[in-house]
């Protein structure tokens, strides 16, 4: 279909705006940690800005981008969006919720970070605003599923386009994940923040948070994989190496990525060591689909290089379109993920986690994974999407071309430094790496290097936002470009076991019930006292 898509476009627009604001906060945080003074630097502003950065990046930027991508793919892959009116209502809900939460943060009433662990209490509107954003995403999921069902009635016996398969898997996973969040926020946090109940159990709330918190990263990663599988080989000029394995990968994420949350709680009391070990096993299992993805994508790129005439063992790499901003973004995102994945394997390593838990290593880790693998893919995808959604030519292509490389340089400096500082013991989320003013000899140089990396990252983010704004308002009007997806080497024509969404959903629910049922009941069986609210900010 060739036409503008305002619904998808406004979602991407909100995502980019959130990203821009959060990036500016990020660079100031890195300067603050490194003890580099700047006007208005203060403790309370630092923790306020860590909260805003986390909420805007991890919740607003990602959720709006993924919703926009989902609508664009439904329109292109299925030729329809069923419930467009509802989708606009959801957009308004999500926007109002995000702004309400952001206002309480900016007013200093909700400096509780994006993990909002009780008994630290934010303004009730913080929780209610976040809930509205999640409700918007639930409606979005319903709209995409309704569009798929309508398409399915007309296309019996044909597998869904791979991009839709990936989005459906993402949506199923999102419903499973947000069930845990809904229990925490609706049954515990909101009544407690309004003063309707006096006490809250912090450990129970944490467990429900991480039920949601780890699949949240796959909610970000799976749409990125959709782009890797269905767009990247095409942009590279090749074909998708294996369509059926891609389908398997998305289903494995649905089944395996929720019952893993205890690997964020290895250092917690209240959960037995054996159940932590069970979640360790599932955590390693969920690495598997990413290993398979690595092969399929790189093989697809090799196909692209060979189709362009490459002969030798490695010279297909040089034949790839490294000057294309989408290609460069994704390729660099994938290189980052190699390191991020192995760092993740260390975090998940049960007892070894004690060496890195809650140190600067962790912020080093998730800026490689979320901050590069996902964010850089989304930035590159924005360059690819905008001309198609707006019917405008990309402005400032030169800036778009260097932007991904700038990001990669920044992240290497930033994340490498924090990984090492974390191994030397620097606690995460500190206003100043000298702590009380007397410490930090072991990591001060590293935090300075990370600050240099953060400045480079900020320049890259600024370039990205500039290109988006210039394109949106000043791009030459063109006939919207077609969405072209990669065709597989071996087209799949018949439904297979990986297309049975109901079956896999049931299996995923059962696994979650096993992985969480017993430990949570065990926790509930103890005499629990609960905590009143605190606001030490």
């Amino acid at each position, binding site marked *: 279909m060739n036409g503008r898509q305002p619904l998808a476009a406004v979602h991407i627009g909100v995502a980019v705006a959130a990203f821009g604001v959060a990036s500016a906060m990020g660079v100031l945080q890195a300067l603050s940690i490194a003890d580099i003074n700047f006007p208005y630097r203060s*403790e309370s502003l630092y*923790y306020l800005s*860590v909260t805003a950065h986390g909420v805007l990046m991890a919740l607003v930027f990602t959720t709006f981008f993924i919703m926009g991508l989902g609508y664009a793919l439904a329109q292109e892959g299925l030729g329809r969006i069923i419930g467009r009116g509802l989708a606009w209502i959801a957009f308004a809900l999500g926007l109002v919720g995000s702004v309400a939460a952001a206002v309480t943060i900016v007013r200093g009433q909700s*400096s509780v*970070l994006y993990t909002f*662990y009780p*008994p*630290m209490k934010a303004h009730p509107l913080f929780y209610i605003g976040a809930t509205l954003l999640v409700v918007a995403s639930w409606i979005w999921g319903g709209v995409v599923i309704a569009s798929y069902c309508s398409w399915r009635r007309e296309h019996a016996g044909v597998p869904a386009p791979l991009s839709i398969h990936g989005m459906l898997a993402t949506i199923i996973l999102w419903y499973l994940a947000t069930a845990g969040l809904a229990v925490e926020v609706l049954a515990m946090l909101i009544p407690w923040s309004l003063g309707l109940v006096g006490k809250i159990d*912090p*450990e129970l709330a*944490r467990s429900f948070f991480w039920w949601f918190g780890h699949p949240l990263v796959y909610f970000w990663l799976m749409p990125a994989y959709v782009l890797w599988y269905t767009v990247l080989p095409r942009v590279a000029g090749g074909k998708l*190496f*294996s369509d*059926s*394995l891609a389908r*398997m990968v998305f289903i494995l994420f649905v089944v395996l990525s929720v019952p893993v949350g205890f690997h964020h*709680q290895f*250092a*917690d*009391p*209240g*959960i037995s060591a054996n159940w932590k*070990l069970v979640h*360790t*096993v599932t955590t*390693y*299992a969920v690495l*598997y689909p990413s*290993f*398979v993805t690595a*092969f399929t994508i790189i*093989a697809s790129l090799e196909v692209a290089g060979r189709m362009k005439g490459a002969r030798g063992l490695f010279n297909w790499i040089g034949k790839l379109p490294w000057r294309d901003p989408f290609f460069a973004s994704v390729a660099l995102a994938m290189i980052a993920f190699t390191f991020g994945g192995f760092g993740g394997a260390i975090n998940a*390593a*049960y*007892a070894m*986690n*004690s*060496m890195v*838990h*809650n*140190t600067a290593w962790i912020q080093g880790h998730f800026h490689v994974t979320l901050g590069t693998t996902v964010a850089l893919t989304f930035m590159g995808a924005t360059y690819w999407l905008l001309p198609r959604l707006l019917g405008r030519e990309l402005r400032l292509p030169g800036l778009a071309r260097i932007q991904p490389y700038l990001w990669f340089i920044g992240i290497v400096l930033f994340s490498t430094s924090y990984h090492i500082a974390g191994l*030397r*013991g620097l*606690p*995460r989320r*500190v*206003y100043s790496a000298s*702590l*009380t003013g007397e*410490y930090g000899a072991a990591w001060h140089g590293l935090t300075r290097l990370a600050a240099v990396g953060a400045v480079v990252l900020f320049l890259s983010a600024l370039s990205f936002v500039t290109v988006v704004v210039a394109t949106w308002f000043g791009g030459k009007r063109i006939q919207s470009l077609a969405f072209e997806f990669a065709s597989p080497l071996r087209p799949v024509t018949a439904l297979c076991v990986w297309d049975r969404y109901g079956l896999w959903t049931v299996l995923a629910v059962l696994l979650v019930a096993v992985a969480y049922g017993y430990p949570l009941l065990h*926790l509930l069986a*103890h*005499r629990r*006292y*609960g*905590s*009143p609210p*605190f606001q*030490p*900010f």
Partner: protein
Amino acid sequence: MHVELYERIWMWAAAGLLLLFLGAIFLTVGLQAIQPPSHIETVDPTTLATNPEFGTPAVRPRADGSVVVSVVAQTFSFSPDPIEVPANRAVTFRITSADVIHGFEVVGTNANAMAIPGYVSQFTVTFKGPGEYLIGCHEYCGTMHHNMVGKLIVKKESP
């Protein structure tokens, strides 16, 4: 489902690598009983001041020469501070919080646990040789979170 030969080899190799990782973890669990701090015990955070143990957080020796350290974390300090323990003896930390969630990290060691109000974190470590360590709070706990530090002094074994 058709899977190319090289892809099949890769998939088996990836599975093997993950089994190797998990095998290493299970070996340390089985042979050395290594595990993260996972104690399950609750305590009323609103009456810590009158709690027989956490009302007076302190280092208490046991008959066998090992010691128990009861620690209360609260915004923005650890108590007791400094903590003095003997070298080469089993030191069992029991940690809870009087207000929000805190962290307890003995910098440069693997002594690392959460301090969660209403719960007691417990783990046992042995420090080899005398020395001084920084204790840092590693969970955001409020405006002066970065100032929340303590000192651990490991002293030569008393005869």
